Structure formats: C-alpha cells, structure tokens
C-alpha cells in the first residue's frame, strides 16, 4: 500500500519534472519560431534572398549554356559527362559574362550572414523589447541562442533549396543525372557554405552585442568582410613579393617553405579557407592545396581524387572555419550574459 503510494508520488514527480523540462524546451522553440518568421517577413532578408536567387539562376544559365556547347561539340557526350564530373561544373564554370555559382555564393553568403545578425541584440535593446523579454521566465541565453539557431536554420534552408534547385535544373536541361559521389560532393559543398555563412553571422551577432547602434555594427561587419575579401590578399601579396623573389631563394626546401608560409598567411582569412574548401570539393582534380614538387608528383596516377580524399584534404579548412565560428559565438555569448540589461 505504502509502496504503491510512494511509487505514485514518484511518477507524479517525474511527470512534473518532465513537463517542466518540456515546457522550457518549448519556450526556446517559441523564440526560434518568432525570430524565423521575423526574418522571412523582413524586407531586408527578402531583398537579399531575391538577389541570391537571381544571381544563382543567372550563373546557372551561363553554366548550362557553356556545358551544352561543349557537349554538342563532342560526339560521346555521355562519356564526357561521366569522366569530367560535368555535373559539378554547373557550380564552377562560367562563360565569362557572369561569375560562377561558387563565386556568387562566396560573395553573397557573408552578406547574408551579416544581414541576419548585425542587429540581433542591439535592435532589441534600442526598441526596449530586450528588458521586456528578460522579464519573462526564460534563461537569458535563450535570446541569443534562439536568434542564432533561427538564422542558421534560415541559411541552411536557403542553401539546401538552392543547391537542390540547381541540381534539378541541371538534370532537366542537361539530361545527365549526377552520380552518388557528385551528389555527396554537392551536399558537402552546401554544408561548408552554411559553415561559412555561420561565421559571418556570428561575427555580426558579436558586433551587435558590442555596439549599441545597429548601423555601427553593420558597418563594422562589412568592414571586416571587405578587409578579408579585398585588402587581405593585397597585403599578403605585398609581403609575398620580396619573400618569393627568385634571387633570394637558394634551395628547393627554402622555396617550398616560403611558399607554404605565404599560403598559411592567406589561410588566416576565412574567405581563403572557404574558397580552398569549395574548389577542392567541386573540382575533384585538385590534388593538393599546397605546393607540390616534381618528386612528389612522379608516379601519381593522373586521375581525380575520390570524395574521401578530397574531404581529407580540406578537413583542416573546415575545422578552422567551424572553430572561428565557435570563437565568435562564445565571445558574443559571454559578453551578452554579462551585459547590463537596461532599457537604453
């Protein structure tokens, strides 16, 4: 009898705990849901999405026409399709009038990330909604986590939709189905795109925590983006020129070492990491990302790399990008948790 009542009590307690947990979990998804619907109904994001969609359609069109010309010129089109990873070229080729899909994504992805994050915290603060939100029984980190998850969800959704759209269009127009390997290459390419966007997203969330004005945080995010996409390579080239000067190099080791040094400098930029990762994934013929000596290439089978090897090649790049993303998020998180919640 007593045992039964005890058991009953216990199950009641467990049930209560369970519902409590369930409820907490629910409130988190309430925030995510609200942020997500905010994003897709805001003009800023709609315009950006439209631009991304248009450019992708444009680049797809040029790629398709170039590939079709190549196929028409050749007799055994089927064979070409198999051997040269024709499907992947949808993402990488262009006829020169419009940049390729991969270039567009590298260019517009960061902008999307910045647009999603630059006013995440400071707009709530400026509109006076943050203190109201904080007065609700939710953990403080739900706010920043919810925004991050919602933005990540949106960009994942967008890029998978885009990737799958391009694939299906390619299939329809070219009439060549992708191989399983090509499919997985594209999936990994899309994942690295999302990681890259997540980096810019977190950077802009970080700025939105630091700066009280949305304009300041947007401009600083864009400044960082411009620096890495335009000026950083220029600066590295300036450094590289005297370093790689033929007159000062005496041995092969020295030449390789210096080349690698310059490359590692370049790899400090997330843009470079991204371009290395994506070109390797989409062009299986890329065999190495560093300098290769003649000795190393001797005896190598001149064939494209399998997916696993390509992944192995870009593993450091991918982990580097994820690490940079995490670092930005952690700093933003800590700053936000410590910040004073004031109406202004």
């Amino acid at each position: 009898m007593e045992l039964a009542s005890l058991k009953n009590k216990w199950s009641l307690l467990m049930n209560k705990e369970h519902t409590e947990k369930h409820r907490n979990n629910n409130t988190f998804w309430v925030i995510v849901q609200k942020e997500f619907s905010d994003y897709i109904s805001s003009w800023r994001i709609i315009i950006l999405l439209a631009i991304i969609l248009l450019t992708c359609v444009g680049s797809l069109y040029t790629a398709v026409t170039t590939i079709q010309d190549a196929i028409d010129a050749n007799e055994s089109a089927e064979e070409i399709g198999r051997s040269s990873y024709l499907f992947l070229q949808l993402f990488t080729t262009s006829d020169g009038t419009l940049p390729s899909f991969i270039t567009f994504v590298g260019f517009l992805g960061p902008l999307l990330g910045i647009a999603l994050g630059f006013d995440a915290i400071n707009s709530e603060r400026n509109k006076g909604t943050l203190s109201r939100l904080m007065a609700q029984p939710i953990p403080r980190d739900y706010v920043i986590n919810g925004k991050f998850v919602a933005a990540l969800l949106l960009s994942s959704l967008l890029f998978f939709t885009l990737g799958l759209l391009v694939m299906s269009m390619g299939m329809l127009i070219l009439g060549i189905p992708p191989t399983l390997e090509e499919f997985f290459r594209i999936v990994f390419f899309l994942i690295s795109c999302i990681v890259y966007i997540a980096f810019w997203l977190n950077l802009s969330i970080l700025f939105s925590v630091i700066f009280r004005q949305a304009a300041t945080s947007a401009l600083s995010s864009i400044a960082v983006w411009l620096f890495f996409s335009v000026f950083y390579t220029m600066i590295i080239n300036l450094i590289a020129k005297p370093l790689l000067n033929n007159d000062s190099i005496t041995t092969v080791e020295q030449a390789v070492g210096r080349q690698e040094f310059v490359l590692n400098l370049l790899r400090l930029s997330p843009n470079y990491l991204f371009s290395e990762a994506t070109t390797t994934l989409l062009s299986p013929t890329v065999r190495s990302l560093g300098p290769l000596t003649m000795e190393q290439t001797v005896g190598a089978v001149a064939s494209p790399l399998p997916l696993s090897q390509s992944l192995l090649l870009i593993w450091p790049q991918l982990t580097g990008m994820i690490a940079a993303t995490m670092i930005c998020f952690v700093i933003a998180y800590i700053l936000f948790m410590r910040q004073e919640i004031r109406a202004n």
Partner: protein
Amino acid sequence: MTTPIIQLDKLTKKYEEQLAVNNLSLSIHKGEIFGLLGPNGAGKTTTILMMLGLSEPTSGNITVCGINPTRNPIAVKKKVGYLPDDVGFYQHMTGLENLLYTAQLNGIPLDEAKKRAHHLLQKVDLLDAADKKTGKYSRGMRQRLGLADVLMKKPEVIILDEPTLGIDPEGVRDFLKLIRELNEEEQMTVLLSSHHLHQVQQICDRVGIFVKGELLAAGDMESLAKQLFVEDTFVIEIKAQPIHKEFIERLQTIPNVNKVETVPSGIEIYCKEDVSAAISRAIIESGASLYQLQKKNFGLDEIYHRYFEGGNPDGIGLTKK
C-alpha cells in the same frame, strides 16, 4: 503583519567607482502599492533590476515572494511582472500578437492565452487597436499594452518603472485608476517608481524617498511629513502690500516662527504652531494691507522640493532628527 512579499536587506550595488544603491533596506507587504520616489539617476531602476535578478547586487540580500532572485531569477520572474520604462514592442507585430508571444514565453496554452489577452485588452481599453501594428501605437497606448503584457502571466507582484512618463494627464489618470483597480480587485502588490510626486501621492499606500542610492525615508504620506518636517509643521503663505524689511523682521519676532522667506508670490512663514492670527494682527498693525493668507498643507511637493531641488542632500540633516 504577515511576512513581506519583497524584502531588501542592506542592498548595495557598485558600478566600478560609483555607488548606485547604498545599504538599502526595505520591505513591501502583500497587497500594498508602494511608491519609490526619487529623481532621475537615484538608483531606482538598478534596485528594480536587482529584484528581478537581472543585475547582481554587490552585497546584501533580496527576497521576492520568498525566493532569492539573484540565485533563482526564473522562479521570481514567473511571479513578478515588470514593466520597464519606455517599454518597447515588436513593431511589425500587432498588439495581440505581442501579448500572445509573451504568453507563449510563459508557457501558457494558446487558447487560454487568447482568452486572457482579449480580457486584458478590454481592461486597458485597447480592444479596438488589438489588430493594429504596435509600431503605430502612441506612447500612452504602448504603456497600456505594456500593463496588459505584464498581467498576461497573472503575477503576484507587478513592478512598474516610471509608468506614467510621457503620457498626457488624462491618460495618467486612467492609468493610475487601472492600477488602483488591479490592486483592489486582485490583491496585487504594486511597486511603482516615479519622479512624479503628485501621481505617487494619488495612488500609493506607502512611499519611499530615494536619493543617490539611499532610502531617506519611508512610510505613508502623514508619517513622511512628520518624519521630514519636525521643526516646521506649518507653512503660512501671505500676500501683503507693501513689504519691507522692518515688516519681515517684525514677523520673525512672533513666537513659534522659525523662518520667514520672501518668494515671488509673497511671503512664506515657517512655524511650529498655527500662528495665522498673530500674523494677520502683525500685518495690520504695521500698516500694510493683507490680500491673502493661506495655510499650505504638506504635499509631497514640499517634501520633494526640500530634498531634490535643493540639490544638497546633506542639508536634510537639519529636518531629520
């Protein structure tokens, strides 16, 4: 009396060098309306944030509804509603949607939340504007929606930070009436911070005067006046013509008169007892003509004036014994 619903014990908050709240002890009982009165920057908002666990005290203890908000802020925030000054809403959402979002964050099921939101919107007279985007709301409407928002979770205590700031007089009156109703109907405890003394005077059961992080006095209106004006219990204002030095000197010789001050509207006489008869006699005898003699009562205005407008909190020592 029962145990207080909000209890602050030697609460101190320091920002780097500045002392925002200094050794504050205060208890608020269930069912009362307490007014926290003080000028801008006195530390009112800081104190409120600490009660909600949104800011950590440097030292001291807080208990709200029997819970320590520094340790367990979420439990406190389930029971306490907070209306920040200059409350903001998601402008692209309607008033109703904003309320429903709050309800969802509080884990209230949707159908119940809808009913409650409807009821509350009616109460704050916003039913017509329920489907309007809050970006188009006026300041007064926002404030009323804020009150509805606070009430969504059925709180035991509501904390209102400068709730009447920037609303027109009519709106203020309605708002205060609403708060009074809530307090009476649902036995809700209300803590209200303001620098508008008249409003505080109208509605609060007890008032605490808060300057530069220190609570100078607390109690109901009468006891506050007693606490603060031990010496000058009466102020008599007269208008007379002509006023000259000898006349003022003569007034000063009247027994129980402490101080005579010339103000633009006439003369103010601070005294221990009601000596208006002696004053009027003195005026007539000195050959001046008396136009007006008025006993001033002690509103918060006087209290406020003495504390804040003087700008010298050290001067308070002379009235506080």
